């Protein structure tokens, strides 16, 4: 310590403080009482009853699930970065739409122009619809009574 005399206010330099801390750190657990305390703790920790270990998941499975989770984490980090950038979430939201358009262009799912009635225009379609007799729909007749119930 510099300025240890009683006439001046004592001041402590950085290196003196560090040296004091180092001395305190070195003196930890040196006393007899501390050794006794340590022995007591050691015996308690060593003799504590431990639960049985559950069967370990195979390392391959762990590694696979770990890399999968890391991939998901990386994707989420990319979509929602620390820095504000709007285009990534917008891009992510538009992905299903683009995917749907692409799939719709490549596959017809059994819906071809030939499988539909060939109407020339939408008013033809309406005319044909008007011919449908819907007056009996929803009525309970003697014939369909059993079916409905």
């Amino acid at each position, binding site marked *: 310590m510099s300025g240890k005399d009683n006439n001046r206010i004592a001041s402590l330099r950085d290196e003196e403080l560090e040296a*004091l801390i180092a001395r*305190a750190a070195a003196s*930890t657990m040196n006393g007899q009482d*501390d050794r006794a*305390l340590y022995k007591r*703790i050691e015996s308690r920790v060593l003799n504590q009853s431990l639960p049985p270990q559950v069967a370990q998941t195979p390392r391959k499975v762990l590694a696979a699930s770990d890399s999968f989770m890391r991939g998901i984490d990386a994707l989420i980090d990319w979509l929602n970065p620390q820095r504000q950038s709007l285009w990534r979430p917008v891009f992510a939201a538009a992905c299903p739409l683009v995917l749907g358009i692409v799939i719709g262009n490549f596959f017809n799912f059994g819906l071809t122009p030939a499988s539909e009635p060939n109407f020339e225009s939408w008013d033809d379609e309406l005319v044909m619809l008007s011919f449908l007799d819907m007056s009996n729909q929803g009525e309970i007749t003697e014939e369909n009574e059993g079916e409905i119930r």
Partner: protein
Amino acid sequence: MNDEELMAAVAQGDRRAYDALVRAHLPAITRYSLRMLGNGRDIEDVAQETFLRLWVSAKKWDPGKAKLSTWLHRIAHNLCIDMLRKQQRVLLGERFDEELDSNSNFDNSLRNAVVEHAKEEPSSQQMIEKDSELSALNLAISKLPETQRSALLLCYYQGFSNKEAADITGLSVRALESLIARAKRSLRTQMEAHYNER
């Protein structure tokens, strides 16, 4: 056998590997808990719980992410913080109707809780220390807020790098460095006061 092999054995239920790990890491954990808590009963609980978690969570430890000593210190650190908060709750509960200073913030209350506890049951180390400088330093450290105390202890007493200490405490390296600087400033003030009293 190194820590990684011993932990793999512990994950398989090998009790001897557990004993070896306890003997290797218990002194550091005890030293840290002693400095953080300052009394014997709680240190025993922290040490026991830390190594119970080592046994139970052995499979979760990833050697690529953290050294075993860092991982164990993180467990012990969290347990110490829990203990200190529990002590603080008990003390606050007891004094609720008496003289609770409305201006004291959490850190002050916690610091008081630790100092009170240290007064009630002084650590064995403090009792045998004859060096008044070291006693004064220990007292000054025990008066530091828990965040500053843990940062200082991890770097200066436990020998961790700033990054490792930041990992243990869950802080950024910059925040940890700031805590250490504040802790040292506070220690210097208290030690100067101690020298001036002599």
